[in-house]
């Protein structure tokens, strides 16, 4: 029988959800859904976003059943740029050009394949502007989260086992 030591104990995986401007309603619901799905896979999650995006998530989960660490988006960029923090998975919420810029920045800093969750009215146009390596999960979801939730359900097992 193999002895369980600290060396062969698998390190807990971590993911960060980088939220964009919360002007598209599906963002907060999908973020909480994704946190739940990742937690079921044993992945520790952190939320990074601006004040409005963070507050929406925190108010939606007052007892913190799902939400763990929450941090400012600039602090997140600073910490990964200065190699103070590292995450196994970076999920970037994108519905505008700024979201694409954040995803490109995270990809360039970490060298990892980021997961781009692309939604909103112009999701195809936005997805077409992405020329850097990333895993795209895209759907026309503005008020109804189901199209993006369904795409996430299809892609998440692959993403978590392959990235």
């Amino acid at each position, binding site marked *: 029988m193999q002895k369980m030591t600290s060396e062969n104990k698998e390190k807990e995986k971590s993911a960060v959800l980088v*939220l*964009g*401007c919360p*002007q598209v309603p599906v963002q907060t619901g999908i973020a909480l859904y994704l946190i739940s799905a990742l937690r079921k896979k044993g992945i520790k999650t952190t939320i990074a*976003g*601006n004040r*409005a*995006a963070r507050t929406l998530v925190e108010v939606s989960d007052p007892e913190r059943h799902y939400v763990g660490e929450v941090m400012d*988006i*600039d602090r997140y*960029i*600073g910490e*990964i*740029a200065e190699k103070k923090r590292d995450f196994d998975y970076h999920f970037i919420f994108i519905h*505008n*050009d*700024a*979201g*694409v*810029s*954040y995803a*490109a*920045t995270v990809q*360039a*800093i970490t060298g990892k394949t980021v997961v781009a969750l692309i939604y909103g009215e112009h999701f195809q146009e936005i997805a077409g*502007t992405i*020329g*850097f390596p990333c895993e795209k999960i895209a759907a026309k979801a503005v008020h109804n989260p189901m199209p993006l939730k369904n795409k996430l359900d299809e892609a998440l097992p692959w993403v978590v086992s392959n990235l």
Partner: protein
Amino acid sequence: MGCIESLKYEIILRDASFTECREYIRSTCKEYVGVDPGFKIFDKHIIGVPPIFIGFDGDVIIFPFTKPCYGTFLMRVEDHDEAARIRQSAVQSKK
């Protein structure tokens, strides 16, 4: 915008794409440098799709600045020390 908001700045382009910012700097600045995302400018890590160009006109620095809710701005700020620091730490691509 943190400390950048407290600077005396001028907005050249509003809600611009990174390609537009890059083209503006390439076509109007006699001197510019290319930096990677995460490069520090006015103590903030720059966000963007690489290559990110920063232009100069003497002590004036022209650079893109992204905010999640407002998109990307191309800004112009005069600062002798910061211009010298960027010139020193970035790889120059002078025209």
